[in-house]
């Protein structure tokens, strides 16, 4: 159900753009109004979500330690798997954000002949990392549309990305990688029974949406050639808040743009917010040395305890008989 529904939703969305621009000629709506609205939703929504998370305190020090604690000086301490200082935490987080450290630990367990065997399972890590970096590169490459002059690193990245110079215009490696990685992420959800079982429409929808964006993007570049200068004018207009919609950009571009707008607007309300959330994860962004420094809970409230006095009152006679010291003799 989830798969069909999500695919259907993305197809419908593409059709909306096709109809809206192709038939109804709402160029301004799809070229200017919707991009602004979705951009606004993204920025405000993202901030709102992060602020909402941050509004809840972190009452306890619940680090997940993945290495030796800092204890006695002669014991080798695992500085980045069990940090005891800010530098350690920063490196741990950087490894997590840039290299997906935890996902890299992934292994699979298999029950064979009544024995458990553990094996390497790095494909998810590889596909995840590839997907995220490819997406990032594509994003950076796209900044050529809304910057003038185009920054030097954007040109370098383009250069590097198209190194193989296959076809004209050059096929970017990251386009291929992105499509392959997303396809892998989709297929594993469908093929692995357990994963299919846990998958929600909210898992398929972003995959199809991103795949839709990638495909329409590739179409605009390689098949249904759009007027790149027109696109640049449109983008520059949007970013300088002097929107214009040049004529004759080409329908494929508007479908591409509309799907991007949907993704951007959908982002803050979806699991994609893991992008912001990962930085706030208390099991990762705290030190592991919670006996060294006291952590304060802002809502720590007094609780009912059973005092020593109450305890002694109940057991005084027995304690005296057993020769245990007591506070009061009778």
């Amino acid at each position, binding site marked *: 159900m989830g798969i069909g529904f999500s695919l259907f939703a993305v197809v419908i969305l593409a059709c909306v753009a096709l109809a809206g621009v192709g038939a109804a000629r709402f160029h301004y709506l799809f070229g200017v109004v919707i991009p602004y609205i979705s951009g606004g939703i993204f920025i405000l929504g993202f901030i709102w979500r992060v602020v909402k*998370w*941050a509004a*809840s*305190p972190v*009452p*306890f*020090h*619940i680090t*997940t*330690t*993945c*290495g*030796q*604690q*800092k*204890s*006695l000086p002669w*014991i080798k301490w695992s500085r980045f798997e*069990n940090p005891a200082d800010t530098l350690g935490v920063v490196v741990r987080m950087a490894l997590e954000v840039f290299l997906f450290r*935890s996902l890299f*630990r992934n292994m699979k*367990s298999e*029950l064979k002949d*009544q024995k*458990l065997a553990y094996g390497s399972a790095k494909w*998810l890590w590889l596909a995840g990392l590839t997907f995220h970096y490819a997406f990032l590169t594509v994003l950076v490459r796209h900044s050529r549309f809304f910057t003038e002059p185009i920054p030097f690193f954007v040109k370098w990245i383009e250069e590097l990305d198209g190194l193989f110079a296959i076809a004209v215009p050059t096929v970017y490696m990251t386009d291929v990688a992105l499509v392959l990685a997303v396809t892998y992420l989709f297929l594993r959800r469908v093929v692995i029974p*357990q*994963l299919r*079982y*846990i*998958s*929600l429409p*909210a*898992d398929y929808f972003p995959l199809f949406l991103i795949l839709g964006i990638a495909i329409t993007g590739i179409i605009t570049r390689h098949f249904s050639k759009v007027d790149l200068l027109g696109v640049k004018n449109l983008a520059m207009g949007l970013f300088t808040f002097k929107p214009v919609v040049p004529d004759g950009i080409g329908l494929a571009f508007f479908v591409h743009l509309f799907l991007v707008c949907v993704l951007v607007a959908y982002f803050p309300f979806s*699991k994609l917010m*893991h992008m912001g*959330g990962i930085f706030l*994860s*208390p*099991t990762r962004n705290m030190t*592991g*040395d*919670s*006996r*060294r420094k*006291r952590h304060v*809970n802002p809502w*720590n409230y007094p*609780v*009912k*305890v*059973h005092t*020593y006095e109450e305890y002694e009152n*109940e*057991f005084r006679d*027995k*304690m005296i008989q*057993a020769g*245990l*010291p007591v506070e009061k003799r009778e």
Partner: protein
Amino acid sequence: MLKTKPQELLKIDYKPPETSWMKTPVEFKPGTWCYSALPKNLKILGLPNPRDWQPSDEDWKLPPGWKETIIRGFKERLDRFRSFKLFMDICVRCGACADKCHFYIGSGDPKNMPVLRAELIRSVYRRYFTAAGKILGELFGARDLTEDVLKEWFYYFYQCTECRRCSVFCPYGIDQAEITMMGRELLNLVGCNINWIMEPVANCYRMGNHLGIQPHTFKDMIEFFLDDIENITGIRPEPTFNRKGAEILFVTPSGDVFADPGTYTLMGYLMLFHEIGLDYTWSTYASEGGNFGLFASHELMKRLNAKIYAEAKRLGVKWILGGECGHMWRVIHQYMDTMNGPADFLEEPISPITGTKFENAKSTKMVHIIEFTADLIRNNKIKLDPSRNDHLRVTFHDSCNPARAMGLFEEPRYVLRHVCNHFYEMPEETIRENTFCCGGGAGLGTDENMEMRMRGGFPRANAVQYVHEKYGVNRLACICAIDRATLHALMDYWVPDVQVTGIHELVGNALVMKGEKKREVDLRGEPLSGAEEGGDV
């Protein structure tokens, strides 16, 4: 012991059911759940809805307005715990956690995949706390809170041992233990709790320890061990109880006072402290290091834990030494100072024997016995004859909490290498931060739950079996009292030739005491294999 044969139990079907998980109601099969809490225990603690009921009953006798109570409690916890709120929102269901859970590996039940166990509660979160969930419902993975959902929570949140193995592998550090803790707190609000947790909590609250050992009996029981020690070594330690002015308060789980093989570990402590002449005292009021409150709610955890500092203050000790225990150390390392500190009435811990300052415990002022003993050995303050453990081939089980909530990896290994000559590691996928639970942690180590315990403990047992077959390992060492209580049954079932031990039992065996008689048996009364010469540190 479980009647089902191990080979039968291992016919595990990992294929998920045909029906979607939201439409697959839970079935309370005997052997896979724990009995409900007795009303008397809830009354002692002043907790809601004490009544006679069992999870297998159709009618759970929920209090009027239970749904509102839970939703209100849900909101309160979302506002109080960033972890909870975040973990409700950011999971992408990548599935990396799925086969990391010992209960999933051992049962094949998809709702034991941490991701899906969390979805059980996330689905309710979406329905009541997100706009999309309110509007789109099931399409957004949201569902109403019903009695069936509550039953499902109960079943699966008491099928999670809060071991945190999944959180090691999660790319966002989502910790199922945290989610289980919240789920159990919510269940507690409407009186859905288990006796194996609530009875120890009630006991500990009133009598100072989980087992409900009263002060005079506590002293008697320890004195009983002194007889044993005297028989074996010719030396009788002289521990003190509730003594004001002692330098150190020693707190350890009461399970080790009560049952084998923990008792041998306790004998090890007594011998060690005697040998180094430690100025310490036991307390009958704070006679519990463990804290089953952790398995029920943050509030109960705090109510029980408060005794340790209160007693340290009353007795006027300088600092606190804690025995071998798993979840106890999660509480002490990650919660105690925050909940019941600051411990400004204590001093920063310094070993009176070696002068070592335990910098890593300078705020909480509580030192782990393994850190303490490792420091003694490092400074040559005790004489050890590891050959007295030559009849043992030892492997080491990292207990979940000291591993993933502290990072106590090298100290126990250092001690082990000095007290025995035959130490073998289990496969690296099953030790240190990757360690597997005993299957009975977080208050689930009860007999009626035996099938689930054997299933959950299977990955651990299987790794033990590996070193048993490869190196002839016959002793499984650990630093956790729950382990000592549950691994025993686990080994009997899966790897019958392996016995369980605390590290300080092995220390006690190897410890060469001043003026002792020639040792012929170990602390269990079993004959030593070799002669006693040559061993030294």
